[in-house]
């Protein structure tokens, strides 16, 4: 069991690291999502694995601590899950904003001497920008 959990954490981490090293914002967001999973499970696993021992008491006083799993990491992870959603949302917002302002969703700044070249090339042939085609002549929407 421990081997499975540890290997799952490892796989999630490896996948996450590989994806955050990609050059596009969406891949990075996916990678961060995988890394959040990995971190959350890792934190959770510090409370040791236990089957059928939820930390919900069935009496007023606890006599046998071994009958319950460790509740503390669970509490920590619970908020971590929600917070990581908030973080993902902020990142998505950044990515969207950057994409809408700049016209592509690269995460790296180009070297200054290449910037003009790549920006022009990106509009022309980059399959990554095909979702949204901008036309700059004013096209008034009807109110």
């Amino acid at each position, binding site marked *: 069991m421990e081997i499975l959990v540890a290997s799952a954490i490892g796989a999630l981490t490896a996948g996450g690291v590989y994806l955050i090293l990609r050059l596009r914002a969406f891949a990075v967001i996916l990678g961060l999502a995988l890394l959040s999973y990995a971190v959350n499970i890792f934190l959770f696993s510090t409370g040791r694995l236990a089957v059928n021992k939820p930390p*919900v008491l069935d009496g007023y006083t606890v006599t046998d601590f071994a009958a319950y799993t460790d509740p503390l990491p669970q509490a920590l992870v619970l908020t971590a899950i929600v917070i990581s959603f908030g973080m993902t949302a902020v990142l998505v*917002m950044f990515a969207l*904003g950057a994409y809408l302002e700049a016209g592509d969703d690269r995460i790296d700044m180009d070297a200054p001497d290449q910037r003009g070249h790549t920006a022009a090339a990106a509009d022309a042939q980059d399959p990554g920008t095909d979702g949204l*085609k901008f036309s700059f002549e004013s096209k008034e929407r*009807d109110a």
Partner: protein
Amino acid sequence: MFSENSLLPIIAMLPFLGALVPGLMIRAGRNACASFTAIPTVLALVMLATLAPGVMEGTVYRAEIQWLPQLGLSAAFFLDGLGLLFAGMILGVGLLITLYARFYLSGKDPMGQFYTYLLLFQGAMLGIVLSDNILLLLIFWELTSLSSFLLIGYWKHLPEGRQGARMALTVTGAGGLAMIGGMLILGQIVGSYNLTDILAAGDQIKSSEWYAPALILILLGAFTKSAQFPFHFWLPHAMAAPTPVSAYLHSATMVKAGVFLMARMWPALAGTDLWFYIVASVGLITMVMGAVIALFKDDLKALLAFSTVSHLGLLTMLLGFGTPEAAIAAVFHIINHLTFKAALFMTAGIVDHETGTRDIKRLGGLAKLMPITAVIGTVAALSMAGFPLFNGFLSKEAMLHEAAHTTWYENPWIVGALATLGALFSVAYSLRFIVHVFAGPVRDDYPAKPHDPAFGMWAAPAFLCVFVIAIGVAPFLATPVVKMAAEAVTGQDLSFYLKIWHGVNTALLMSIAAIIGGVILLVLHRHLDRVWIAMPRPEAKAIFDRLIAATVDIMRAMTTALHHGAISRYLAIFVLVTVALGVIAFAGGAMGPATRDLTPIPPVVFIGWVLLMAAVAMVVIHHRVRFRALVVIGVIGLMISVGFVYLSAPDLALTQISVETVTILLLLLALHFLPKQTPVESGAGRRASDAALAVIAGVAVAALAFGFMMRDFSTISNFHLANSKSGGGGTNVVNVILVDFRGYDTYGEIIVLGIAGLCIYALMEALLNGPAGRKLRNADFGLDRSRDRHPLMMVVATRVMLPIALMVGVYIFLRGHNQPGGGFVAGLIFSIALLMQYMASGFAWTTRRQKFEYHALIGFGVVIAGLTGVGSWLAGRPFLTSNFGYFEIPPIEKFELATALLFDLGVFLCVLGAVMLMLYSLSRLARHAGETVNNEPMEYDPSSAVRAPSAPGKGA
């Protein structure tokens, strides 16, 4: 109750408070401004004067304001003889400078600013000499560096001023940093940061093995501040400052701070061989070198600057000797140097002011044109030269006496000989100051018409000259002050008398030799000057500039290599370094043996694991096809939720599955506007290396997790289990931890979540009002869309489900304290229920029916949670202590109410508000992008027989 001790912090604070005044008063005119600057100084002087008699009798006044006593941090002040002497000098000269500057500064200079800087500096200096806590002293020490930076660079339009200010800040600031290290070591050795304790623990410090590093670091601070070789070069460049600044900082106060520190630390640090060889040797070198260079400087202020360097070297050397007699001589010379050097600087300023030049080669014959200035300058310069009947003679004599009796590496004459050489050059440059400026025929090529300045300008130097002569003629007048300060320096009772005539002794002969030699040097000056100019000399500024440029280059190379704009590179470096640190930690510490057994793996769990691993692999392989990757990410989240269920974490499972839903919705929304494909941009090599790095990181983390899970360690978790019901009133321990034991954390977390929501909202506002918004309005989504954007089935189903879903949410919320559930999960469930309406019936339809603002929800959530916490104050308990009780209302069973439930309500509202605000903000994009808007209950009204138009109309 009035206590004299309480005056100390007030004295230290007065200049800082006063620093606010000149900036305001400048509107009332220059005289008013100067007068108001004088007020805090005068007040502080008067307070000091009331304490002076006590100090003279040997009382040490103390005042302490505790701040963090556990860390040794407190605002502690004390006043003893040395502190009184320096405080008096700082305030007294400060007053004279205020007067002088009023006349010196021209109408174009911002005077209010000048006086503000001056008072800031004065406060910092006072702080140094009054501090009883070395950490406090360090703060004031750095403040003098900063405020002197402002003063030196006061004439911002002059490049020399700016460069000089930067150089002074760099050198003294770096020394200050070194000194922080030294002081901290000192504090560690003694176990206290109180100066009084440190001074009393001299033997303990000197026998400590940390003595040498502490000493060297502290001396670095003192030497840089007091311009000792090889850090002397900043002082002449700081002369670009207005002359009042030079007179104040560079003769009387700031450069004396290093000397003060050495004197202050004398009982704790002095007396060892190390101290002698470092301090005395550096002082000796500085003294001779400064004097030699001073003779060949043509700029009046540069001459005085190097002479100051030389005299500071003299003081350092005397303190370095480590004998009480030398300490007496040092204290006496501090007073004398202050009087004649400040007067000389002010004289130089007057000459500059009146003739328009400070170049000695262009001056001469001023005695006839400016008789008063000439008298003042001559008196002060003769004292500097060490002629009898002036005060400089007395302390120089004492110095020569000490030098003649000092053995340096078993060599009995070298110190005396070099000291005489220094004195000789000192005579030469002092006489040059007199002869080449005031004597000789009147010239007709001065840049301006020189004449004596207004009384206000020469009053200050003349006042100082009174001391020069009075002490010179009647040294017994200074005896009590010198005795008081010297006893404070050495910590011993001293009895001595200052007198002019000691009989014919070695010192007198050395003095006579110096005067004769100095006169000869001056006569030969023209020839020597030619040799000097022809001689190659290291130019300190060029070396300093090259050093700074080289440092900047190295830093820039490092920055551009590491930080060149590619975030993927930073991330790779970060991952690599983290893994490397982990490996180092693993290799360094012995890991204990595994203490736990592996738990068995049922087949169904194995299947789940295979699914999870396959999903991860698919996300990685297919991440370019964004939509597919998103779907598979959902599988991962689901498997993790199932895992949580199996591994006894029902709360986590509930949270994970609802967060998963919301996240996927969020990413789907975003993907609508983002490209649907990721292009291949990195080559095979790059991908392979990234993959290798990823695998290394993955294996490392897996190994860490496995190692962790196989070992036992002690935790505080059992406390929570034991007290959950009895102390927190709930059986769901996880929930009780969240809302009770660690309520503070949760409170912080919901605030973070709320801020994230507001952040997204604000970003979206900025985005929609900026160029992105315009682009978006003109964007053409070339996608195939479903004609039936709000399918009837879905609309009906979600509307039916809404009350049910909300009911589930309420149920989950209420049971949270005792069963899995709670505010977090309930908030997410509510969000999902509302989001379904947005999805099925459209943004406009839902927004129109929404009666509350999501911002307000966040606010209410935080406020309710906060008030719940505050409520426990009313019961006299700490913030967020929960209370609970059992109630019985007849038709219902006995039930429990806990304040924690109220707190959980805050959590619930905040989560709901934040999640909804985030998704709501994102969906606003869609409206700007020309989505069709649907306000009706249904796009297709089944009750009407007429079909809706096949192409939905635009606009609302």
